[in-house]
């Protein structure tokens, strides 16, 4: 939960350093300071059951070969 984690919200959030092509179309769990991918999976439920870090930040990663207008 947000209120229990250290405040890393002002640090740089450079996802280019930790995400790559292998993460495309998958769910990833990042550590709270955005320096490490804790795990990835095509199945979010399975990923949440694998990740023990309660401060993990989850994202779904779109393919990097397109720009997006969501």
């Amino acid at each position: 939960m947000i209120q229990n984690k250290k405040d890393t919200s002002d640090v740089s959030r450079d996802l280019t350093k930790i995400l790559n092509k292998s993460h495309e179309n998958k769910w990833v769990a990042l550590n709270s300071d955005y320096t490490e991918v804790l795990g990835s999976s095509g199945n979010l439920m399975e990923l949440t059951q694998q990740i023990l870090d309660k401060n993990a930040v989850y994202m779904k990663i779109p393919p990097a070969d397109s720009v997006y207008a969501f």
Partner: protein
Amino acid sequence: MAWTEYPYSNVWHGEQDFVIKQPRIEIDIFKGNKSFHQSAIVDSGSDLILLSADIAPVLGINLLGCKSMSVRGITGSRVDGYLCEIGVRVEKFEEIVHVLAVFVEDLHTNMLLGQHGFFRHFRIKFEQDRNMFALERAPRNIVNDPIAFEE
């Protein structure tokens, strides 16, 4: 009320080999006693809050019990969505705001914070030249609100 600042997130665009800056914030979403922590995109172009349908079972939500609605992307393609009420807590804010959100199958990203449900609750400033954007809680007495949804 004061503005609360957040840094942009850098995302790599592989084909063109350049970096795109996205206004992402961490969000806790709640349903009952379950919650999910994620990074979401602040998206002024979305009419509502959109979520990947993958998140519904994590929150214990049965989408068949939600109101169905159509969602169209920028190309006009139509997909099914499911309108549900959830609780949302924004990074650096304590309050949980109860909003309507649409769960969408095959959404390429996990969560878009759109106009109805997010921008009506938060004032937002984008200052990409400073690599920052900022949020401020909007006043509770929203005026000139033609939205038919109840929250």
